[in-house]
């Protein structure tokens, strides 16, 4: 593939802190290698801003290899940018053309308040996990892996759900800011495995209750979450969660 350097116009959301009103600022970024990642392009811009004694743009990032779930950015109307099954850190500048204007916004949801610029507070997800996204294990010798037979299809489905990196793109894409794809992935990961069975009912009840408490919206099955998920988590997990929740609610004795 031909190597090219391109010039772009970036329209980026700048907001000093959580209480600041914020607004868009436009930057010209020049001579950007198309082999750079989207975040590297931001690094270049930030170096320039620092050199000019200006405040660099704050954005979340960590592993930069698509597995930590830290990067966010709502790029040109789509979480994680134009590529499918991809995170912002793995989005490369070859996705854009010379002279293009790119609009970069933070995840927008009341449950994800903005900390600064493009950084949002996603600790609501941590609290949902604390509510039920775990299994209780007695200490002692590790159980032999073969002691718990698991059907291959179920193991695969649980693994596919466990691929969720908790980035919050599902919430960012959903018109209701619903966290159901995230919650359902975490529940489906554990609820399909034998180790997850003892706490299956309390898990879904507590996780949904916490999700509602955090201020996420209700799921209306539009499928926007599934379309943007960098890990291609299936919307069928939401149906699984709905069924588990209904069964838990109807059979709970309280």
């Amino acid at each position, binding site marked *: 593939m031909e190597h090219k350097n391109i010039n772009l116009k970036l329209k980026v959301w700048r907001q000093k802190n959580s209480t600041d009103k914020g607004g868009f600022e436009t930057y010209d970024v020049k001579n950007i290698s198309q082999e750079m990642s989207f975040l590297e392009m931001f690094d270049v811009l930030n170096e320039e801003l620092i050199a000019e004694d200006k405040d660099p743009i704050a954005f979340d990032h960590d592993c930069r290899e698509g597995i930590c779930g830290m990067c966010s950015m709502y790029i040109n109307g789509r979480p994680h940018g134009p590529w499918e099954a991809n995170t912002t850190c793995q989005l490369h500048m070859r996705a854009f053309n010379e002279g293009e204007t790119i609009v970069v916004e933070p995840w927008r949801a009341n449950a994800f308040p903005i900390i600064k610029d493009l950084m949002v507070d996603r600790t609501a997800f941590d609290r949902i996990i604390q509510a039920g996204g775990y299994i209780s294990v007695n200490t002692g010798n590790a159980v032999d892996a073969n002691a718990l037979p698991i059907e291959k299809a179920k193991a695969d489905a649980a693994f596919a759900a466990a691929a969720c990196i908790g980035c919050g793109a599902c919430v960012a894409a959903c018109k209701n*800011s619903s966290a159901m794809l995230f919650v359902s992935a975490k529940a489906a990961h554990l609820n399909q495995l034998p180790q997850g069975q003892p706490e299956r009912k309390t898990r879904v009840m507590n996780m949904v209750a916490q999700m509602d408490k955090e201020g996420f919206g209700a799921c209306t099955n*539009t499928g*926007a979450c599934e379309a943007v998920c960098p890990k291609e988590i299936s919307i069928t997990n939401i149906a699984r969660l709905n069924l588990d929740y209904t069964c838990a609610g109807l059979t709970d004795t309280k």
Partner: protein
Amino acid sequence: MTFKQMFTSSVGKKLVMGFTGLFLVLFLIVHVGLNACIWANDNGEMFNKGAHFMGANWVPRLLEVGLFAGLILHIIQGLMVELSNRSKRAIKYDVTFGNKGSKWYSRSMGLLGVLILIFLVLHLAHFWIPNRSAQGFIGLEGEIDLYTKMKDTFIGDSWQVIVTILVYVLGCAALGYHLAHGVQSACRTFGLSNPKWIAVVSTLGYAFAIIVPLMFALMPLSFHFGWIN
């Protein structure tokens, strides 16, 4: 988890929407089936017999109370869920995601529902209210000739008739799009996750969403264009 906690949670509210929605789907089947009798071309004889059974028999009349209860619950709960969902993103995006990840009608259930409600008020004012009013609302006797009422409403070249027909056709279109998402969404809310059955339900849902509203829309058109005698 108490029943109250369950049915006031985000998942529980959707369960209520799904159950009342599918209940209303059952009503649509009865309604379209009975109304299809206008095409018997017998000057409304069969249609009026059906209408008489529904209006002058205490069993359907009692079920009608349940129908209104389900309808009102669906409307109120739907509006509440819609307003609550809209409030979850105080600051909107500058560039919207649009149709890139979801169908427009799946995102517009609230709007489509309101359009159907507006149509429904007009529709009840045309047929149900005059009929029940003639019966004294709780009485079983004294129905009006609904076939003649249909003819009066849909035949003629006055602007009222044209506007009425247009509203009916648009109401049916709104219903079609509402059902196109509603049927399969309800089934997913009930927990249908098996891809085989999702394919079956989606196909049936789309078929229902096309066939039933199309049949309803053809009724005023049939009268207006003289396709039935």
